[in-house]
């Protein structure tokens, strides 16, 4: 199991967040508005979004651990 540091978790969180925002430009918002192929349009944004949450949780855990010591 890999144990990532607080700093690494923070950097990964920022990177994933940036990629999540960049992935927005691929989305055809007209299709979303019309309710067509929503899943297909957002598919490339799902992974970076979930990973942002995961690394945020990792980061918060590290902070909690630091405070607990």
């Amino acid at each position: 199991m890999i144990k990532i540091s607080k700093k690494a978790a923070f950097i990964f969180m920022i990177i994933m967040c940036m990629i999540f925002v960049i992935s927005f430009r691929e989305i055809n918002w007209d299709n979303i508005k019309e309710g067509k192929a929503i899943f297909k349009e957002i598919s490339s944004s799902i992974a970076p979004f979930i990973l942002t949450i995961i690394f945020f949780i990792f980061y918060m855990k590290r902070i909690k651990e630091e405070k607990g010591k």
Partner: protein
Amino acid sequence: MNIVNSKVDNKLNLPDAALELAELSSKEILSLSLKNKWMTLEDVTLTKSFLSDFKNNGIDLAILNFEKRVLEMNLSKEEFSKKNLFINTVMVMKYKNPNAFYKDFETNKNLLSKSSAEDEGILGCVLASIVLVGATIALGSCVTLFLCGLALFSWGYSFNNWMNKCVGQHSVM
């Protein structure tokens, strides 16, 4: 040619050099056309810009930009009439069958707009690779069942995305 002529009852005739092109790949046709001066690099750039405009902004803007570029080029009468013939043909096709130009552009962006993997190119592949690395790290460092489930889910998605962007249209989902 004989088959075509017999079908449409015509006497269409093409030079041998043009018929030989049918056996070549698109890249070979382009290089041969440039070599034989059938078209210039300017023509290639102009056509690429037209296609790019068409994919990203729609046919109307593509036609407008094409006309603007051609006027800026200060071409000879002969060259100008060639470009004029091309854009007039496009406009006639658009007039005859507008759905072919608008319907696909609106409803299926992938057809005429960015063909995900191609237009995104290296940047798309790099970003997909970073996400895949991130997902692998998240999968390797998760502790709780919930986080491992999320990490596995995102790994699946990022792998699928990576396959699309870097390998081609080999989506597994």
